[in-house]
């Protein structure tokens, strides 16, 4: 497992690792105005790394994320749109790991999985 990136703020942290065929992005805390400063770049870097490393899947682990605001959701949407437009040979799947104890995740991920149908899957833990 190789660490690709790590971000730590007072109320938010993110880590990005490469593990075999996956890139795994783990978020903790609150994805609000503080996190949003990093989101666009983080997802841009994940997209570049995913293509460079030839992974088949990017996992986004939200289980420890308490909330995501609409500005951060927009950055996720922009990223998913990039994935959708990526040529098939370099395209990868996106798997969200969510928690039953965070009901907002079911609601937000339902909308995102409709937006990027065929690319996004949601696993509830």
């Amino acid at each position, binding site marked *: 497992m190789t660490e690709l990136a790590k971000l730590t703020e007072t109320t938010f942290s993110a880590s990005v690792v490469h593990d075999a065929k996956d890139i795994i992005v783990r978020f903790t805390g609150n994805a609000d105005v503080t996190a949003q400063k990093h989101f666009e770049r983080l997802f841009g870097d994940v997209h570049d790394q995913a293509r460079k490393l030839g992974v088949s899947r990017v996992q986004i682990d939200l289980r420890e994320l308490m909330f995501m605001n609409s500005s951060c959701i927009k950055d996720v*949407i922009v990223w998913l749109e990039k994935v959708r437009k990526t040529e098939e040979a370099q395209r990868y799947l996106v798997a969200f790991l969510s928690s039953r104890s965070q009901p907002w995740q079911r609601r937000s991920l339902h909308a995102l999985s409709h937006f990027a149908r065929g690319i996004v899957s949601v696993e509830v833990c």
Partner: protein
Amino acid sequence: MPNKPEPRSTLLDLSFTPSLEQVSTVRRFLEEFCQPVLNDPDMVCRMAIATHELLENASKYSVEGAAPSRLQVSIHQNGHGKELSIRVSNVPAPEHVGDLKATVAGVTEPEDAAQAYQLHMVAAALRGEGSGLGLARIRAEAEMSLALTINEPYACVEAVATFGDGGES
């Protein structure tokens, strides 16, 4: 004789100086504060989504140094169950009032909230500044109705959810 509507029970009435950095703090406080009253984690989550998005909008678009913004949370019983109301009032910068009216109209007019939210998502992917998603998210994800009242210089956006005996709105 028609039923007399039950009075609103105010859970919280808070005046505050809008600050984007404090929005999550207020949302978390409200989640804890309302949990024993709502006694429904999913309803608390819907309230949290609406509160967060409304407070962020108030923080982004208020006139600096104007009167404090106000957050009011109330609940009342009607014939179909309970209604939870989140009202956020602020003094918006005049140049944002037209945008606010247009955004609320664009979010509330479509009959299908989920379909409208998908269209807002497509638009968000093409936008430069801002997401334009906050109010559409309240309607679709939090399943709450929205209403805007302008009483110059104040603008008040109210999000309402029906829950309890009558089911979700």
